[in-house]
């Protein structure tokens, strides 16, 4: 069971006197989406999918239209980049002589509204929350996340690399968003999932009450979308399997052979969060930055006298086991939502689903203390 940070409040289902179910769901015409985004831009910084030289990512809405709805399936760069950017200034400082003066960072007042986030990416944010709230709260991530609103959009056309249905999610899973949109042709069905979402819809005049045909269409659309995910893994017992084959050096060496240890899978993964911290000083003014880092890089664990993960197979083992063994041991959830970006974008087509479905059985293990 995923512990999410903002428990969704289920809305009451009203029954009319004839016994028919009437929900509080709304309906928005696709042509009105741009107007809706415009309304929301008053209070929020609206983020939408965009394309830059063919690379799809999340950027601030340019106020123009909602043409992204024509091509949007899922982005290459996940929405985690809004809350945990590839590079972020943590604070600045001045140095003169022997003394230093630290400049406090301006705390972000931005209220991001992510329009069109897919269920896999929304679940990924809930998974990231567990780390950034644990022990010590991360001020930079949480300042934006606490103010953020997620308007989810159910998938209609999953990729052949998607496998969300194996990981407690689906193309229509609304658990981790504030509003959930379902494509029903000319319109979107709008379901309010949290109070925040309900308040957002209450303020606009662009939505009408959803009728029964809308609900029926939505139900059909959801069923169709859910059946389109063809890639599957057996997630049950993965943690235990990895626990038992952790020491099998031969196995890990074999499957790591074609990996090139770049950072693509980790950078574009919506649940990966490892970061590096570095300082820069120019004359007497400087900044401390945090930037995306990857367990695939050898420098990640390098110490002056030794490196516990010098060999590539150890780093690959760390990546797989962190997501499917260590994170579940700590937070009771697999740190993967089946978005498939790692499979689509890997330069050598290394496929996690093939690995997970072919872990060595107990009898085949050759453990060596390594």
């Amino acid at each position, binding site marked *: 069971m995923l512990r999410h940070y903002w428990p969704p409040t289920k809305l009451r289902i009203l029954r009319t006197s004839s016994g028919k179910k009437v929900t509080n769901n709304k309906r928005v015409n696709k042509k009105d989406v741009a107007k809706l985004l415009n309304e929301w831009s008053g209070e929020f910084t609206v983020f939408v999918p965009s394309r830059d030289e063919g690379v799809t990512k999340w950027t601030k809405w340019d106020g123009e239209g909602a043409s992204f709805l024509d091509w949007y399936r899922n982005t290459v760069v996940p929405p985690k980049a809004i809350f945990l950017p590839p590079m972020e200034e943590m*604070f600045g400082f001045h140095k003169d002589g*022997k003394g230093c003066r630290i400049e406090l960072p301006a705390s972000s007042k931005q209220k991001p509204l992510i329009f069109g986030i897919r269920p896999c990416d929304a679940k990924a944010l809930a998974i990231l929350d567990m780390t950034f709230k644990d022990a010590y709260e991360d001020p930079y991530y949480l300042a934006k996340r606490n103010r953020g609103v997620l308007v989810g959009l159910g998938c209609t056309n999953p990729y052949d690399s998607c496998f969300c249905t194996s990981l407690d999610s689906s193309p229509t899973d609304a658990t981790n968003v504030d509003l959930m949109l379902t494509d029903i042709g000319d319109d979107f069905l709008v379901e309010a999932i949290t109070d925040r979402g309900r308040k957002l819809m209450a303020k606009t005049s662009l939505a009408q009450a959803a009728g029964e045909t809308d609900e029926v269409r939505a139900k059909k659309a959801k069923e169709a979308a859910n059946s389109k995910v063809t890639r599957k893994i057996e997630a049950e017992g993965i943690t235990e399997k990895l626990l038992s084959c952790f020491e099998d050096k031969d196995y890990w060496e074999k499957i790591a052979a074609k990996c090139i240890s770049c950072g693509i899978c980790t950078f574009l993964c919506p649940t990966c*969060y490892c970061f590096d*911290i570095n300082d820069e000083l120019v004359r007497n003014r400087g900044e401390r930055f945090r930037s995306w880092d990857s367990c695939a890089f050898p420098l990640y664990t390098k110490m002056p*006298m030794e490196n516990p993960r010098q060999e590539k197979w150890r780093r690959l083992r760390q990546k797989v*086991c962190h997501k499917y063994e*260590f994170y579940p041991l700590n937070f009771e959830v697999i740190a993967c939502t089946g978005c498939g970006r790692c499979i689509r974008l890997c330069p050598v087509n290394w496929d996690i689903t093939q690995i997970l479905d072919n872990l060595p059985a107990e009898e085949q293990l050759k453990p060596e203390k390594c």
Partner: protein
Amino acid sequence: MAVSDISYRPRFLAEGNVYLPHLAVIEKTVDETHDTRTFHFNFKDEKLREEFTFQSGQFCLLSVLGLGEAPFCISSSPTRRGHLECSIRQVGKLTRALHRLGEGAEIGFRGPYGNSFPLDFLKGKNLVFVGGGIGLAPLRSLIWNVIDDRDRYQKIDIIYGARSPADLCFSYDLEAWDKDKTVNMVTTVGKSDDGWTGRVGLVPVVLEQVAPSPKNSVAIVCGPPIMIRFTFPVLERLGFTPEQMLTTLEKRMKCGIGKCGRCNIGNIYVCRDGSVFSYAQIKSFVSSEY
């Protein structure tokens, strides 16, 4: 094995932001060896100077602003307030820059982080400290802590060695512990020089010769990984159980609070759940990479 609760640990956040360092001024430096120096420093902020506390075994992240930050164990004892001490060996960009700083220079301080030596578990027991080289730094905090509270503990054996007499750290403390009649101080070197009249031998070998009894004892081992790897089997031969062996583990660290990911061993983070571990805990790690 869900993630452990560490909310009880006292925190000293600057402006409520865990990543912001406090500024501290270097008051004094003491050369331990040719490449190791102890820095005595104090917070600029008076209120923090009064309020700050930590436990033996905890570490801090020291910054040379503009160059970076790295983890160092606090080698002074929490029983001796007035200033903090960190002992630093020159091994890279940041540590070399730290060594270039003199009295009056300002550095950044974040901490204290990590868990600490379990004083309640050590109470009423015989303590065997086994240290090598700069590994004495985290032990030193605990040793002075224990000596300052002498009646709570039973016998104290300290077995400490370095590669050569010139590599022995904290020579002034070694002298003091040698003079202390309630402490059995055994110093050794791997290779002697002309002036050396003391023991010669590697620490694990000398430990086996001293052969402290495991009865009601706890061994605390800190030193280079190779020394630890040879010391644990000696302790096992002497009859110590894995629960009776404590050590500190080192990893590359950046955030110090279990977020940046790099210091993990399996599902635990050395910065958050360590750096003090018992050998029993280490054996139960889901990963053998420690």
